[in-house]
């Protein structure tokens, strides 16, 4: 029974979303009730699945004797599903208000809800093929959201995103084929390549790993494959916030984790050349993203580059291939989701309330939009890594995992982490300083028309910020939940 439950969780938002354009709501209120009901029901149902349905499985059908479409709830996927199902209702609430001035709302909310189901599909995929399927679907379903505004810029961004993502997925597909044809297992329940990893096959598997790493590295925005992410910032803010800070990019990171821990394993990767390549690229991306964010003055693009940097924290932690690296990466996956969505939401709120898009134009906004900027400041401090906020914990966990691993590249990663912390302070706290402490010649009446956003926007901000603080102070339950992934990914321990 619970096997079918997974299918329900995935299909309800997909079908429910597909119905939005068909039902063609005219009234804002009706559409909001409908969409929110679907999203909330999915979240509640998913959360109940996570607590009661661990380990349940559903084989949808067999493509061939070796390839099948399987859904399964394991702990690793549950962590991603938890993140997504908590954030989606809040982002939906925010989107209702944000989209109120834009056109074609039915199309937007249709695809927005469909993406929820597809992301859950990525999380609950039981083998590589299934994950690949949902991964590609996610690309296709998010393109209309990026191009939503219909401007030339938006269309270019959409095409760029499509080309990058499809190319990446194709590369991953090639790696997948190589494994399949040489006796490796694509089932996530089977850890490692097993007997297939003979010395003769090793070179091929190494190559396949690189294909998959860089293939999924597109969505994880690993340098030099990150280019689509800042460009995609033209999308409406709920899309940038939820999809480009959480669902889409984390799908990439999530897939890399699947490759590292469930297709390959620690025994194969530890100390290998491909691990070093991965660590080097992710450490470099941490610094690259953070420096680019610092140089950028477009508010949302700055946050997008910050995402580039932070995603590589997670990838870096995963590639340490130790239990503490895996849990540290997952912890940052959760926390970065919380922090970055708050930052993006505030950027969007500022755009929505005042139309300003550059960080240099935000003088005095702290007083004009007190709730938004209070949450922005807390999220900024958290992302910088100030205790006892949640971002500190995950950074600490990553650093400790790196020190325990102890290779030179791991130390380089710690250095990258610290460099990034300084730049993060520079590119976020300067915004706060400007917003709260305008120069003496600043005239408050110039912001007279700028008002704080309404409850649709501030409520998600306040709830998420509360989570940032509370999870930073009391992470025990979450850490225990994440820690449950270790026995599955390291059966030898």
């Amino acid at each position, binding site marked *: 029974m619970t096997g079918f439950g997974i299918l329900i969780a995935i299909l309800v938002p997909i079908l429910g979303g597909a119905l939005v354009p068909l039902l063609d709501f005219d009234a804002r209120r009706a559409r909001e009730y409908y969409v929110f009901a679907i999203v909330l029901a999915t979240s509640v149902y998913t959360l109940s699945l996570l607590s009661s349905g661990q380990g349940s499985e559903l084989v949808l059908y067999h493509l061939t004797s070796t390839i099948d479409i399987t859904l399964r709830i394991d702990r690793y996927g549950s962590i991603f599903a938890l993140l997504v199902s908590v954030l989606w209702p809040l982002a939906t609430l925010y989107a209702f208000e944000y989209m109120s001035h834009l056109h074609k709302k039915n199309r937007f909310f249709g695809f927005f809800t469909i993406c929820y189901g597809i992301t859950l599909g990525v999380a609950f995929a039981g083998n590589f093929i299934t994950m690949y399927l949902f991964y590609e679907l996610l690309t296709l379903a998010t393109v209309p959201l990026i191009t939503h505004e219909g401007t030339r810029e938006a269309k270019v961004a959409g095409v760029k995103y499509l080309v990058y993502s499809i190319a990446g997925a194709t590369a991953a597909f090639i790696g997948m084929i190589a494994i399949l044809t040489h006796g490796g297992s694509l089932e996530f329940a089977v850890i490692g390549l097993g007997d297939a990893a003979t010395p003769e096959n090793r070179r091929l598997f190494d190559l396949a790993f690189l294909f998959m790493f860089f293939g999924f590295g597109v969505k994880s925005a690993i340098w030099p494959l990150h280019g689509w992410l800042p460009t995609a910032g033209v999308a409406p803010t709920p899309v940038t916030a939820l999809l480009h800070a959480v669902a889409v990019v984390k799908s990439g990171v999530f897939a890399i984790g699947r490759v590292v821990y469930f297709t390959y394993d620690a025994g194969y990767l530890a100390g290998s050349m491909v691990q070093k390549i991965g660590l080097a690229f992710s450490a470099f991306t941490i610094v690259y993203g953070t420096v680019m964010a610092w140089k950028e003055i477009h508010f949302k693009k700055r946050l997008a580059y910050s995402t580039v940097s932070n995603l590589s924290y997670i990838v870096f932690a995963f590639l340490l291939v130790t239990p503490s690296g895996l849990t540290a990466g997952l912890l940052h996956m959760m926390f970065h989701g919380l922090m970055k969505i708050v930052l993006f939401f505030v950027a969007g709120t500022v755009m929505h309330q005042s139309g300003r898009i550059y960080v240099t134009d935000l003088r005095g906004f702290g007083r004009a939009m007190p709730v938004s900027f209070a949450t922005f400041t807390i999220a900024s401090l958290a992302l910088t890594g100030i205790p*006892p906020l949640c971002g500190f914990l995950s950074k600490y966990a990553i650093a400790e995992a790196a020190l325990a691993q102890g290779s030179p590249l791991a130390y380089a990663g710690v250095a990258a982490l610290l460099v990034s912390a300084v730049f993060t302070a520079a590119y976020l706290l300067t915004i706060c300083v400007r917003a709260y402490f305008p120069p003496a010649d600043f005239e408050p009446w110039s912001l007279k028309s700028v008002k704080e956003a309404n409850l649709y926007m501030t409520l998600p901000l306040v709830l998420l910020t509360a989570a940032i603080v509370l999870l930073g102070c009391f992470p025990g339950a979450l850490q225990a939940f994440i820690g449950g992934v270790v026995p599955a990914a390291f059966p030898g321990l």
Partner: protein
Amino acid sequence: MTQLFTLLKISDGLAIQFGADGLGRMFLCLDTVMWILVGIYAFKYKEHMKHTKRFFAFYLLTYLMLAALSMAANYLTMYLCFEFMTLLSMPMVLQDGTPESIAAARKYLMYSIFGATLGLLGFFFSAHYGAGTVFTPGGLLDPAKVAGNESKLLVVAFLSIAGFSAKAGMFPLHAWLPTAHPVAPAPASAVLSGVITKAGVLCILRVMYQVYGASFLAGTWVQKALIVLSLITVFMGSMMAYGEDLLKRRLAYSTVSQVSYVLFGVFTLHPVALLGALLHVIYHSIIKDGLFLGAGAVIFTNHKEYVSQLHGMGKRMPVTFGCFTVCSLGLIGIPPFAGFLSKWYLAAGSLSEGLPVLSWLGPAVLLLSALLTAGYLLPISIHGFFPGEGEKEAEGKEAPFQMLFPMLVLALGVVVFGVFAQPLADALLRIAEAMF
């Protein structure tokens, strides 16, 4: 630390804990007394400021963080308080809202956060190689884990100490200090220079003596490099102060130099030198607060900011200049004023520590710097009281009593702590000896 108060236990090895040891108590007393005196002064000085509510809010919040920093019982708590102290004191720097003050505040923020981030590196390593987390005299590292990783840890020790030294204005991370301190309103400059720089000293003390342990660092390249850096700073700060005309910036450069006296004593890793360092922490706080309040009084009542404008002002502001002169004499180190004794112990400790070259080079640099101190402070008093023949009589009036009172108390402190220093020195010696 015997009694610990755990505010929040985040997870294993991560807790926000406070405890009171002698060192923390000493800093807490110092912070509190200074905050009260400067606060009294600020109640009058605020007539000169906009956004006074904001100023006092951050003034008090900064005190809160300083107090918490003094009582921090482990590295995490210390790092947290250090970061928040920076964030909460930064608005006092940009109080005036001029472009220069905002730029200065940013500079302050970035230097401090950069330094704190290096400190965070130290935290990562201390958590990894430590036997516990609570600060322990003699160090908290686990010898079994450390074995074989000494060279790595020495690099980290150097970086984290250098990081915290940004707050104390040590070369090469000193540049923010002469930018940020002068643009702040005088009460803020006084506590920034006199007290908050000492927070950097406290963090360094904790890291050197209670995380790594004096015996781990003694005689290593880390100790030598740090001593060299502190001596460079002592000399450089004095030279820069000597050549500076803007009074508050001259005092800020003087802080750069004087706090590195303290650091020199800390780095020497000798009980007597450490006693000198702790004494100098207190003396310099009293003296530098007195000097900044004096400079602020001149700005407040007579709108004069440059040393060259002060000729003859001593006759118009006898009390202000009297206090200023007493503090100057203390800072130069003329007995029996406070400031002499601390330098005496610094030199004595350094000479008996016996590092080659550095043990005598240090006292020599301190002596040279004392001469420079006389050179950049005494002319202010001399020209203030005895303007040259034929110079125009300066206009101006004495500062109001509410501003004079804290200055008088501080000047009295310079005399009393100089003449009757024995009880203080005894108490500090116990603290210093307990660090080893």
